[in-house]
């Protein structure tokens, strides 16, 4: 195999779509027009919990440009209701969810009617003419409220608001806590947050009444998931459903979820026999996008005076919205939090409990990192405080308490399989990178002058690229395989059709690099098409940092297959044994003579047009397909460590991010440039989560800050420069050796920012435990420390 340093595996190549996208030639969902296409908008419940007493649609139906107004009576019967429970989690419950609210709305934003018109503006005009009479009901706003005795029960058939209650225990935690020399207990609070992709959700549903086929252009991370859902829930044979992802303006997991408004749009198309476009506008995204991170976690750590960790315990409770998220189960945040907290550290005794609780809010779904940020924050905050209690430096504590390399592979008390992780290596690299001793010295000097800076170091390990054992038992029809078809074109270039999708992370570029190297051509001879459920092998798409690791492995295998078939034909044509041939830069080369013997263009010409010149029984196969799934692998465990350097203005409560560093190990680096930029982007999202972002609600669960002016996404002015370095410990079970990288930036940054801000406040005896760390929360923390 020849490696082209400029374009193969390991090359730093920018995302190849950028040339097109940076000249204004993207084709995102809202850029696409189909003939006879209509536009939809939704009328939504203004109340978090209310009975729909009456709904009058006549005036709306008569409004200019309106093709139809559909309500629950029209839409719901066309769709099998969803029950978002994981089968392998006994006791996980959800009320069935229909597409539209019928007699009752259980979250502010729940769709009640869909207006379909010639333009979005006309649809909105008509929507205003629709009159709804609501009778507000008591709303449950937060998880503690939801489980308090006498709380209103959102779904009577469930008896209470608990979706899921799961505990795990390892070793003897009770005894370990009782015997410990040091016990540190904390209570952490995390407000609801959102992915806030710059491009909102959208789709064009195109039901063809002529043949009963459905084509959906969908800004979705998994066309295959949606193909399956449209087929099963809308009762259309699967082979007649096609889902195509166009250019997508960011996903981060949010565009992975199952949305009733999107599926209702498809039903509208079926009822009208015309294409219907629905693009979420920004105001409605606040009340309709899946949300994340609404948790309260009690946690504690037990240590011996010698510095040994004896036990950890977590008690997590998450408010997951009004229904279980179908397919992308809402128990995931809590489960990851309790199974992954403290994973990098050696200890034997552990107790964890997670409860998922229904509230009258929007559904919780997937968002970058899921529950792993909680695990990182808990583990790193507790161990940082532990180091303080022991009087040793936090880095030194980590050195002493990480799993030693000699103990790998191992299983942590939370059940995490650690195999090819590199905690120590990453830590040492980071310590050098930040000039740790100098930084601590600077911190100490400035403290004397009343300037409060903090250093936070956070280690994490990260489940990436989930395999069949993860989803299979859950009953969710989520495929963790991905596949790749490669076709040698007659002129000798290579066309790749992958089941992967790309929302900006550059996955398709990585695939091109892998194909280029595997086949033996330069990357500009390779085109990659992805995200079309009808034309590629069946697959998964983008989530859980899996694209390059899984789809890349499939591409590698397909590339090897195509190479083999090309060489078989070349062998016949040149009368040279196939094992004496290789392919470099689109030429078949005799490895002994180092001479080019035939070009790929010639192979293509003969293979496709001159089979008459070939031996009778020679089987030309210049188009191959390969899929890959790791049957027995739950995930590939990646890891990293990050550092934040912050300054807190103790008079105003404002926090400045002075610097940020990351050392990341995602296995084999297919494209270091794309990896670094993924890490940077994730870091800034993580900083945003810790400092800025929250959905604010009134006492009765009404959203108060549903605009971009009030939901604070990080902008350039407040963000630090970010240095990224790598360690490469390849995944042992695949040929490619890549692990996932999409979420590590965010996970580690949330940990390091939490620790850093608290580190800054330490000399003042203040602690902050409520995310995001708004100026008011910082000031309150300082006031508490002063005893006021």
């Amino acid at each position, binding site marked *: 195999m020849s490696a082209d340093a400029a374009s193969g595996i390991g090359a730093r190549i920018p995302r190849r779509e950028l040339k097109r996208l940076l000249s204004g030639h993207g084709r995102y969902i809202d850029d696409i027009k189909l003939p006879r296409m209509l536009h939809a908008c939704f009328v939504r419940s203004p109340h978090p919990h209310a009975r729909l007493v009456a709904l009058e649609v006549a005036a709306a139906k008569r409004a200019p440009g309106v093709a139809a107004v559909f309500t629950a009576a029209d839409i719901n019967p066309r769709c099998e209701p969803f029950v978002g429970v994981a089968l392998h989690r006994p006791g996980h419950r959800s009320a069935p969810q229909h597409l539209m609210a019928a007699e009752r709305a259980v979250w502010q934003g729940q769709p009640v009617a869909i207006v379909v018109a010639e*333009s*979005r*503006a006309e649809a*909105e*005009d008509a929507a*205003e003419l629709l009159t709804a009479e609501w009778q507000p009901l008591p709303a449950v706003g937060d998880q503690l409220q939801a489980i308090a005795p006498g709380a209103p029960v959102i779904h009577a058939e469930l008896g209470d608001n608990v979706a899921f209650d799961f505990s795990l225990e390892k070793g003897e935690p009770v005894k370990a806590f009782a015997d410990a020399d040091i016990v540190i207990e904390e209570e952490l609070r995390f407000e609801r947050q959102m992915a806030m992709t710059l491009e909102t959700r959208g789709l064009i549903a195109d039901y063809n009444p002529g043949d009963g086929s459905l084509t959906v252009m969908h800004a979705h991370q998994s066309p295959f998931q949606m193909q399956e859902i449209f087929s099963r829930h809308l009762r259309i044979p699967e082979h007649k459903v096609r889902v195509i992802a166009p250019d997508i303006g960011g996903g981060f997991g949010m565009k992975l979820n199952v949305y009733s408004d999107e599926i209702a749009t498809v039903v509208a198309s079926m009822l009208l026999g015309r294409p219907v476009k629905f693009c979420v*506008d*920004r*105001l409605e995204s606040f009340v309709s996008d899946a949300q994340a991170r609404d948790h309260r976690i009690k946690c504690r750590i037990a240590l011996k005076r010698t510095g040994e960790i004896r036990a950890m315990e977590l008690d997590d409770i998450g408010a997951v919205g009004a229904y279980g998220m179908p397919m992308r189960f809402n128990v995931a945040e809590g489960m990851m939090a309790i199974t992954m907290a403290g994973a990098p550290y050696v200890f034997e005794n552990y107790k964890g409990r997670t409860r998922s609780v229904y509230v009258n809010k929007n559904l919780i779904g997937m968002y970058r990192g899921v529950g792993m940020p909680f695990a990182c924050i808990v583990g790193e905050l507790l161990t940082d405080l532990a180091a303080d209690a022991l009087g040793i430096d936090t880095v030194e504590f980590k050195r002493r308490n990480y799993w030693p390399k000699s103990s790998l592979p191992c299983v942590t008390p939370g059940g995490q399989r650690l195999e090819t992780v590199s905690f120590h290596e990453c830590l040492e690299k980071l310590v050098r990178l930040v000039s740790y001793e100098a930084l601590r010295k600077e911190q100490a000097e400035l403290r004397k002058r009343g300037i409060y800076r903090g250093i936070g170091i956070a280690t994490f390990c990260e489940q990436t690229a989930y395999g069949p054992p993860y989803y299979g038992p859950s009953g969710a029809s989520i495929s963790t395989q991905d596949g790749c078809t490669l076709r040698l074109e007659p002129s000798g270039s290579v066309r790749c059709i992958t089941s992967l999708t790309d929302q900006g992370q550059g996955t398709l570029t990585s695939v091109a690099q892998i194909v280029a190297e595997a086949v033996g051509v330069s990357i500009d001879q390779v085109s990659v098409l992805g995200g079309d459920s009808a034309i590629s092998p069946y697959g998964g798409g983008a989530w859980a940092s899996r694209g390059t690791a899984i789809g890349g492995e499939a591409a590698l295998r397909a590339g090897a297959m195509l190479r083999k078939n090309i060489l078989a034909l070349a062998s016949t044509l040149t009368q040279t044994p196939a094992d004496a041939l290789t392919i470099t830069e689109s030429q078949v080369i005799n490895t002994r003579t180092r001479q080019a013997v035939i070009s790929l263009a010639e192979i293509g010409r003969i293979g496709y047009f001159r089979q008459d010149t070939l031996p009778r029984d020679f089987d030309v196969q210049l188009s191959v397909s390969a899929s890959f799934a790791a049957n027995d692998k739950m995930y590939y465990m990646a890891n990293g460590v990050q550092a934040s350097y912050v300054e807190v203005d103790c*008079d*105003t409560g*404002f926090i400045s991010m002075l610097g940020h560093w990351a050392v990341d190990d995602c296995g084999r680096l297919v494209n270091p440039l794309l990896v670094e930029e993924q890490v940077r982007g994730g870091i800034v999202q993580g900083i945003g989560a810790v400092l*800025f972002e*929250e959905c*604010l609600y*009134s006492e009765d669960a009404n959203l*108060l*800050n549903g*605009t971009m*002016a*009030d939901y*604070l996404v*990080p*902008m350039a*002015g*407040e963000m630090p420069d970010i240095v990224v370095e790598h360690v490469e410990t390849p995944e042992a079970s695949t040929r490619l050796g890549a692990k996932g990288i999409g979420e590590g930036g965010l996970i580690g940054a949330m940990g390091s920012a939490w620790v850093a801000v608290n580190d800054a406040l330490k000399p003042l005896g203040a602690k902050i435990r409520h995310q995001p760390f*708004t*100026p*008011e929360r910082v*000031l309150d923390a300082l006031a508490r420390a002063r005893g006021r």
Partner: protein
Amino acid sequence: MKARNFRFIRPASLDHAYRILAENEGDAVPIAGGQSLLAGLNMRLSAPKLLVDIGDLKELVGESQADGTVCLGALTRHRELLGSELVKKHVPLLVRAASHIGHVAIRNRGTLGGSLANADPAAELPACAVALGATLVLGSVKGERAVKAEDFFTGLFETDLRPGELIVAVRFPVMPTGTKIGFAELARRHGDFALVGLAALASMHRDRIGDARLAYFGCVDRARLARSVSAAVEGLATPLPSAASFEAAIRMDLAPEDTAGLRADTKLHMAAVLTRRVLNSLAARAPA
């Protein structure tokens, strides 16, 4: 988020604009930069029937200086404040404030008149106008009248503008030599509306504060002079070691309310911190 239907008209002259506004009283809304108005229209927060595009009217542009006053046309864009030699020389507080207004694209379109007419309590320019003792020239079919800035802002997003009236120009007194200016705001992100802000003008006697005109924004319902605070700080020597000398006065002048994510007591605390920082910066600055 598509705006409701409305009519649009671009008047040929200021006179024409006045007649249109008079004829369509209650239904017509002027649009200049549109940076606040259009956001509201896109969100369907209001339903005007007619938009009157005054953004082109020559009578509303320009800057001049006469009789100890700098006069800026209502259509002076925020960007132009940053680039004007006249403003830099005689009304530098506006230059300090303008760089905090939104972002470049907003400053390219947003206007002085628009900002004052909108009277957002978290906006910079209304507070500056009040601190500077500016006078607004208002016009309509009935003619022109002058209103002092400190009398112009009457409530939350409310002004003394009468139906059919437009802000034509704003007159700023040239500051006496030796006057110091101070400006600061606390905003979560650069360009955001201020949580708390302060525009200040003061005469200084060496390191002692003389006459000070202080106008807060962000934590108030409208821009107005903080008279109690001015009185409390008069004669004090800077640098002030704490907010003790004027904390009570701040409470009297500001009376903020709890808002989502920011309590009244936090706003008062931040206002006190900002006041101390601004006052302590006055002596250090070169005179205006």
